[in-house]
């Protein structure tokens, strides 16, 4: 690079000023939007107080993309929206058009690229997911593979609005949950089921012992010595396989191909509409990893989605539907087994018991 070494380095310029990236119609109507209308699952129009309109065409993306993919998008943007486009908070792509006439040709071009048009309204939205085996060291499952397998199967729900309300699915490959797994309508979570191994040589050299001990949610890690140096020991019966110790201490690897897999969670949401935001709750406590297409995971998610589609009233999110029919019925109609793992025995778990005689018989 010509302008670098030796000279004073430029730092802390921060993100690019978004003003440069706003379509003129957006600039002119910033803060003046009056209402929107969803025209299809793939496009909507926002109408301004000034009468101006902006059309958004939404396209699905696998998120992990090549440079060529982005360049394809740029080409389309140059052709139909003066180069302007945006991404959504769930990794969809939105082209912003001021000319209604451009919509159809754009959509046709998108179809030619075999990209999915959809994602607006009462659909299964694009899955928020994480790195998995592609890039992360603590993954108990792959992220992109599960996501792809699911979206292939749920494709019809992305391009058509067949559901009672929005369904947000998320995937995280470990309990760090680098996604909104803990508050999603349906969530898939990579899990371990065996305690970490203790590689004492590594532990004494690479790990800060106090942080390692503090990392354990159940206090299963206790101080110890090894070869005269501070180390740790493990109360295996107390381990909940969270992998947090491995995050801070490379000497405690926890992956175990035989026992790693995923659990499935339901009924979380983040919006404040109607009901308060809420956590996803455990539905299926364990499914083994079965790459490349994770049929068991796909089936479980499909089971939930079908039950929801058949049972929910219009406008009810997954969690709202389950609350109305009750958890016993949810387990009954999905056929998932309710076990002691489903009963929260962690810190605030007590707050989740049924302290009432309100029981469906």
């Amino acid at each position: 690079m010509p302008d670098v070494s030796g000279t004073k380095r430029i730092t802390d310029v921060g993100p690019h000023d978004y003003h440069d990236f706003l379509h003129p119609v957006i600039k002119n109507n910033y803060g003046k939007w009056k209402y929107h209308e969803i025209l299809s699952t793939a496009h909507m129009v926002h109408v301004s107080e000034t009468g101006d309109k902006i059309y958004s065409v939404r396209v699905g993306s696998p998120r992990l993309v090549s440079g060529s993919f982005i360049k394809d998008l740029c080409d389309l943007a140059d052709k139909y929206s003066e180069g302007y486009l945006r991404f959504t908070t769930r990794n969809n792509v939105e082209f912003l058009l001021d000319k209604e006439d451009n919509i159809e040709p754009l959509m046709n071009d998108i179809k030619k690229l075999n990209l999915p048009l959809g994602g607006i309204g009462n659909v299964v939205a694009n899955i928020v997911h994480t790195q998995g085996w592609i890039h992360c060291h603590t993954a108990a499952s792959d992220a992109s593979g599960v996501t792809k397998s699911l979206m292939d199967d749920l494709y019809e729900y992305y391009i058509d609005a067949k559901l009672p309300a929005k369904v947000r699915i998320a995937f995280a490959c470990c309990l760090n949950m680098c996604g909104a797994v803990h508050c999603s309508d349906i969530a898939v979570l990579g899990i371990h089921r065996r305690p970490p191994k203790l590689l004492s040589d590594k532990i004494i050299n690479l790990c800060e012992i106090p942080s390692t001990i503090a990392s354990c949610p159940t206090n299963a890690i206790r101080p110890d010595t090894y070869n005269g140096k501070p180390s740790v020991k493990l109360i295996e019966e107390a381990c909940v396989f969270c992998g947090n110790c491995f995050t801070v201490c490379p000497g405690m690897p926890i992956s175990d191909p035989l026992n790693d897999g995923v659990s499935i969670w339901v009924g979380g949401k983040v919006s404040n509409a109607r009901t308060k935001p809420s956590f996803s709750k455990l539905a299926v406590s364990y499914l083994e990893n079965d790459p490349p297409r994770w049929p068991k995971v796909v089936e479980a998610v499909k089971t939930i989605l079908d039950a929801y589609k058949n049972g929910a009233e219009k406008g009810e999110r997954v969690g709202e539907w389950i609350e109305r029919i009750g958890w016993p019925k949810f387990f009954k109609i999905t056929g998932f087994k309710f076990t002691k793992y489903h009963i929260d025995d962690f810190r605030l778990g007590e707050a989740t018991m049924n302290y009432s005689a309100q029981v469906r018989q």
Partner: protein
Amino acid sequence: MGKKYETPLLDELKKGKWPSFVAEMERAAETSEMTGDLLGQVEQSYKEKMGHWKHGGMVGVKGYGSGIVGRFSDLPEKYPGVKEFHTVRINQPSGFFYKSDSLRKIVDIGEKHASSLFNFHGSTGDIQILGVKTSELETIFQQLVSFGFDLGGSGSALRTPSCCVGMARCEFANYDAMHICYNITQAFQDEMHRPIFNYKFKFKFSGCGNDCTASIARADMSIIGTWKDNIRIDQGMVKEYAKKMNLHKYVTSKCPTKCMNYSDTGLEIDDSNCSKCMHCINVMPKALRPGIKGGATILLGSKAPMVSGPRLSMVLVPFYDVAEDAKNGYQWFKDFVGKIWEFWDEYGVNRERIGELIQRVGIGNFLEAIGLEPLPEMVSSPRGNPFVLYEDYVEADEGQGESPQG
């Protein structure tokens, strides 16, 4: 560059209608040899059902302590291309808006100096360039800076704040989320690039209670739009909606505060009882609009489960007049955040997020320290147990006193 390895398992993931990340990897492999090796290693992971990345690793650009996630293969001999395969996190622009020319420049960097693979975007919001060798880091950084992009956060530092599309394209936005997001991201560059916190800190800005950035679940500080005055009602349009749907069933009876009433005379809302949940407005966007006295509720503390369980953010400031503060360069907000960080700095321990700290020390103490009054808006209900740590008492013949610790 042709196929380097047989990948029968991954090939299965090229089938189906949803765009395939495997296909994308193969496309990337056309311009980057590294990515060919990535395919090989991931195929092996699929076979063995486990990852093949080593634990962390120290890499970064000079002077910055964050923005790069170091990643090394544990099979470097077998897959030399992924021996070093770091991620560069880049501050996304507010609202994820782009013009094609800037995007092309970023792509260009990734194709020339890395694996040609990207995340648009990472879960926190950054653009991510995957597969960067240590030797390429400085080059990439310099190039980014040259056209006005910069690294994001990682480690014990601020993360790139993110926001919803807000006023740029959403009629529900109650404050200018994109503007404040950009402003504070610029203001806190130092906190993002030079880790000095106990752990990470995230801001997310959503223009209304729909919370399209999922801030209440994923940001240490969640700034969510709200309003003070009345919902604007177009009674004519309400009637139109009533023709198409049962307003009682789908709108008024789902109002969480039951503050709405629909009758022949039209829709009535007891706005003093409305909790700005957005439901009615969502369902009838042509008939209802948030009030005009917009602002935001500031909430604190959400995060993923480690160590003490997942958290949502809780209300700290019921109403923050964003527009007013904007006139002042958001100085109130910056000071407010400063006080919180100071408290965190003083009382927090390593890897303790702010939400965990507050619960550990007690919300009352936290509020006192940052100078906020306790308010009933902060709780879903007052305490139900009688174990109150009273600090006021009377000394014999002395009148109202203060406790030693008071």
